[in-house]
């Protein structure tokens, strides 16, 4: 007997689709004919409306203008606009030369650097949090910062000069991540877990190397220089440094921005992402490459700046939700504004510069606690 007989498969649809194997699924008939009910005119899969994005977009612009006005030689928005416009238009030269020096030689490079570093660390952090399926990951998880710190310490030890420090720090940052990645391919295990462990391992090695160099360094000249560099600062930035950072940062930012939808899928984990059609191995390499380029380039000019890559993505998640489609641009906008404002505090809060890295930690840790306590469960 046949206790359970499947009703004959819907002949019209089955015949049509079996013939064209990779074609579309026949349009499944909704049982409730409310096809229109779902279309409420929301933009494609977006939680945060364009209004939120626009609002976030004004943050870095406002911070940019404010930062010129802030400091020992205040530049008003009017003066700023005039000086900037004069670069393009033939305006009469009615301002003191000091103003121009302050705007173009001192403040502009520093402001742009702060925004680039903030955007880089936040984007890299957001991308890594998805890739490692863990919201507590920061951009230095694979040892990029540890390597960069070691590179800078070595360069200072050998008195290589500012450019030498930056190049060495950038290269060692890349080297550390490369080592961590190649180490991880040797171990047959869950690839994501192995990457984290390899990153911790390599990071520890380079941090120990930095300690060793500090121990060996001349305690009156070089040790303070290394220590100060490791605290992170944008005080000594020049327009040449900015140009050097722009290229790797943009080179890392653009692919990540274009791949941001896939970061959602990657955060579901290796097997599920592959079953959804994602070439996870290749995507992971691209993400690591981009994030490392950005992190190493940032750290090479700014030194160690902690907590930005951790808290900014969380803040962005609270504002626009976890979808990388909005999260990544939001992280860029919030990150650039955030680090710029903290850097303003670093240069203006006291009569002497406060190292930026110290400030980001002092602000970051309690702020993160606040997010943990008050944000919606799972959003942080």
């Amino acid at each position, binding site marked *: 007997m046949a*206790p359970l007989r*499947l009703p004959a498969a819907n002949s019209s649809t089955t015949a049509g*689709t079996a013939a064209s194997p990779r074609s579309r699924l026949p349009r499944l008939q909704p049982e409730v004919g409310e096809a229109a009910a779902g279309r409420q005119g929301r933009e494609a899969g977006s939680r945060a409306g364009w209004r939120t994005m626009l609002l976030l977009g004004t943050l870095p612009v406002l911070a940019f203008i404010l930062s010129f006005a802030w400091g020992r030689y205040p530049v008003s928005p009017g003066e700023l606009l005039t000086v900037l416009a004069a670069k393009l238009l033939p305006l009469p030269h009615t301002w003191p030369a000091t103003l121009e020096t302050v705007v173009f030689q001192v403040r502009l490079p520093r402001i742009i650097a702060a925004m680039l570093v903030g955007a880089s660390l936040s984007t890299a952090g957001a991308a890594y949090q998805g890739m490692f*399926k863990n919201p507590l990951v920061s951009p230095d998880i694979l040892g990029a910062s540890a390597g960069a710190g070691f590179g800078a310490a070595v360069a200072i030890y050998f008195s290589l000069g500012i450019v030498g420090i930056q190049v060495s720090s950038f290269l060692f940052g890349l080297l550390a991540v490369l080592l961590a990645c190649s180490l991880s391919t040797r171990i047959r295990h869950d690839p994501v877990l192995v990457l984290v462990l390899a990153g911790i391992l390599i990071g520890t090695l380079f941090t120990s190397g930095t300690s060793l160099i500090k121990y060996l360094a001349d305690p009156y000249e070089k040790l303070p220089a290394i220590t100060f560099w490791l605290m992170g600062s944008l005080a000594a930035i020049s327009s040449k440094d900015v140009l050097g950072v722009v290229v790797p940062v943009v080179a890392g930012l653009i692919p990540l921005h274009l791949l*941001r939808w896939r970061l959602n899928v990657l955060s579901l984990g290796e097997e599920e992402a*592959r079953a*959804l059609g994602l070439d996870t191995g290749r995507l992971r390499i691209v993400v690591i490459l981009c994030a490392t380029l950005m992190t190493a380039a940032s750290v090479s000019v700014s030194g160690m700046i902690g907590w930005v890559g951790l808290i900014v993505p969380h803040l962005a998640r609270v504002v626009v939700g976890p979808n990388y489609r909005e999260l990544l641009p939001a992280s860029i906008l919030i990150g650039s504004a955030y680090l710029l404002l903290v850097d303003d505090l670093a240069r203006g809060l006291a009569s002497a510069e406060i190292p930026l890295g110290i400030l980001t930690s002092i602000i970051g840790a309690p702020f993160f606690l606040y997010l943990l306590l008050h944000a919606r469960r*799972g959003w942080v």
Partner: protein
Amino acid sequence: MSLQLQDLTCGYGSRPVISHVSLEVHPGEVLCLLGPNGSGKTTLFKTILGLLKPRHGRVLLDGADTGSWSPRELARVLGYIPQAHTPPFPFRVLDVVLMGRTAHLAAFASPSEEDLAIARQTLETLNIAHLQDRVYTEISGGERQLVLIARALAQQPRILIMDEPTSNLDFGNQLLVLSQVRRLAQMGLAVVMASHFPDHAFLYSSRALLLKKGMVFALGRPENTVTEESLQRLYGVEVKIIRARLPNGEETRVCVPVTGAGGATRPEAAGEVGEAVPATVETAGAPCVIA
């Protein structure tokens, strides 16, 4: 599109977990995979999905060897439904379903309006359109499982692979999910589903595959393969298979574990629990009617 496994052997490292499995699944069919823990159900799925390379044998889709297919090509044909789980980030339900469109997107693209329409359509197909703006991590397990099915449907696959889709669900949600599975097969999909419950094979599948230590123990219509003897040999427990006539005239079989002196399967005992629904119960070939 039909799925065919030819003499498939696969596993991790040097240890084969699945040996010489051959089978075919056609559109409209639900193949139910039964077998104790560690019998190789998940490994078999991973191999079909291309997550594990076969050590021997082939996976064919309409006769074409999938060995060289990219994840993207596979995902356009094979929809995978994992057990309901909690992802690290609280995505919106509609976004989770949209992720099913990934295999249809260009490398640098995000889902378009058309993808969105397809995602909404699949939610409507499963009658869960009302969930679309909820947060995936905050809905119930049964709803999550349905969302994962919707996500697989958004892939517009020909074949659905389901790894114990009901394992974390309460009784009502199990039936809800399984009846949707049967409906999808009726719409022309081929479904391969792993389960821990022999009853699922009777109720929702057209064929059953019994796996024992990575080998095919039995393959065929559930009423021929899922028997008291085969279940005893598969799981090492004594069971009775009871035939019951449903109010609509259809007949089904139910698997009942034999506990103690077989009291649970005695007609009077069955009658006590079955009174609300008049059913014909037949044990050991001797039919008797309980009204």
